[in-house]
């Protein structure tokens, strides 16, 4: 299915309940080959449930899930899938090389263990038992394991949790390389900056419903606010700033550093300059994914950001837990 148009992952009208709790409510989602999709949502929003359906560990109550055109509960379909184990779950007495060999043995054409360990900087640890690895090393091994079978699609659930900056950068590089080679990636993360750095498309899930599904650029534009940062001794307290400077929606302050949010950064800058206000260190930035995400899930009562395709739903249980 090299350049086929058929989606690699196809979720159609899927509903999944756990007893009385609706974890996913009529969710539809198609992911084409070569996409790098970030899935966001608060804890218990249904992200994990969605991933467990795509990896064939659960089946939906209604609707269909397809992985490369097949039911993911079939062994053959899962040969195209790569998944990370939770790093706490690696078999402690097995050596790094043995764990990779073991997982590789499930695939027709695995990446040679030596090459894989080399790529993830684990070559010198090959003979160590996984119980003796540091958290960061385990995390790297976990992501390496998702790639050993040369999958068409990988599911990364919080791939860099607990990693330092260097470790995270190294994993980002590996994920980007895999994606550059034509791989499809589904990524969840609590680090919104991680999703912003990696993903090209963002799917926001909350209370079992897709709240937004769009390109990163469009999602960020939906926020519609620019951020103007400056240092000034002349401005009042943060909540008094909007009254002082027209066009500022809200502001925050740390010492003499102010963050001002405005729909029109150009007008605000003009206003700042002509007002004769004493300031320095001016920066103008777009909104971050964090702000977009905050607006989408926190202010869900306003229909402002809801995609028109998704009808408004009243969730009965705020705990809509995915477990």
């Amino acid at each position, binding site marked *: *299915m*090299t350049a086929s148009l058929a989606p690699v992952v196809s979720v159609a009208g899927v509903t999944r309940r756990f007893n009385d709790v609706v974890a996913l409510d009529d969710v539809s989602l198609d992911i084409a080959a070569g996409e790098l999709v970030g899935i966001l949502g608060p804890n218990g929003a249904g992200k994990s449930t969605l991933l*467990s359906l795509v*990896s*064939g*560990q*659960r*089946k939906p109550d209604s609707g269909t899930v397809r992985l490369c055109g097949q039911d993911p509960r079939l*062994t*053959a379909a*899962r*040969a*195209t*899938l790569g*998944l*990370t*184990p*939770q790093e*706490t*779950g*690696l*078999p402690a*007495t*097995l*050596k790094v*090389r*043995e764990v990779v*060999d*073991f997982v*590789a*043995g*499930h*695939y*027709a*054409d*695995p*990446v*040679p*263990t*030596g*090459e*894989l360990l080399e*790529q993830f900087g684990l070559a010198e640890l090959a003979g160590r*038992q996984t119980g003796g690895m540091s958290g960061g090393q385990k995390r790297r091994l976990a992501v390496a*394991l998702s*790639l*050993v*079978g*040369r*999958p*068409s*699609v990988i599911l990364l659930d919080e791939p860099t949790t607990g990693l330092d900056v260097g470790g995270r950068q190294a994993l980002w590089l*590996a994920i980007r*390389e*895999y994606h*550059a*080679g*034509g*791989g*499809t990636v589904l990524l969840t993360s609590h680090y919104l900056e991680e999703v912003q750095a990696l993903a090209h498309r963002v799917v926001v899930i909350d209370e079992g419903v897709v709240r937004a599904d769009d390109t990163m650029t469009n999602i960020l534009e939906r926020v519609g606010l620019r951020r103007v940062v400056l240092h000034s001794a002349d401005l009042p307290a943060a909540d008094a700033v909007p009254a002082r400077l027209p066009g500022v929606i809200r502001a925050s302050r740390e010492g003499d550093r102010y963050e001002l949010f405005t729909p029109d950064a150009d007008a605000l800058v003009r206003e700042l300059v002509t007002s004769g206000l004493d300031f320095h260190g001016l920066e103008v930035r777009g909104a971050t994914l964090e702000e977009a995400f905050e607006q989408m899930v926190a202010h869900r009562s306003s229909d402002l950001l809801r995609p028109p395709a998704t009808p408004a739903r009243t969730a009965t249980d705020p705990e809509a837990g995915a477990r």
Partner: protein
Amino acid sequence: MTATPHQPAAASPGPSVTAARPARVGAPSGTRLAWLHLKYQFLETVRVPIAVLGNLLFPALAMFFFVVPQKEVAGDPIMATMAVASLGLFAICSASLFTYGLGVAEDRALPFDPFLRSLPAGPTPRMVARVLNGAIFSLFGVVPLVLIGWLFTDATVTARQLLSGVGILLVVSVPFVLLGMAIGYSLTAKAALPVVQVILFPLAFAGGLFMPPMFFPHWLSLISQATPTRAGRDLLVGALTGEPVYALAWPVLLGWTALFAVLAVTAYRRDEGRRFK
């Protein structure tokens, strides 16, 4: 251990070693997968030497304390062979119940378990490997007994008797493997441990594995004949010594096997349903 040889990746390695590759040149066969799982389960078990030693030591020590010093047992070929058989069966029962009861319960609690389920292999290779791995370590437990019996007592068997004895031992282990699985898939590791102990020791005693059933009072002997341990013991003793076996031994053993099989499958399904519906 050397890494298994891999075919080099086509002619040009491409920009990334992990690049997605659509070609699927035939998945590994079920036998290969079962072998793979067996190999790594064996390694995992053997790397915790105390678990292996425990299996070897208890029956061997019991042999030294309770059989070797008693001249009237150790010096009598039939009695000595019976003692080896009884403790050998105990080793098998204990290894099966602990490996499966406790081992399965522990595995289920590991976060690696859902990852294994997501690999392209059904549950069969893992199950097959588990049974074989259990059988290997069960037989390990019997080796010191046979050696002690041979070196320190008058126990005697012909090669044919020994072979048929090992065969019977493996058949008799089946219901205990199934019972272990039923426990492992029903309970948490913490609960499985005492349950296995509470089941194992009364069954072993009532089955005549610690004290020969000929010393039992009549009522206990009757109860004893209905237990899977007694049926297994008598079949094993029969195979090793040619002593007569009570007529109901096979039906009793097979009946328990069928019952434990149903329990094991039910427990497995319920566990699947609870966690992976």
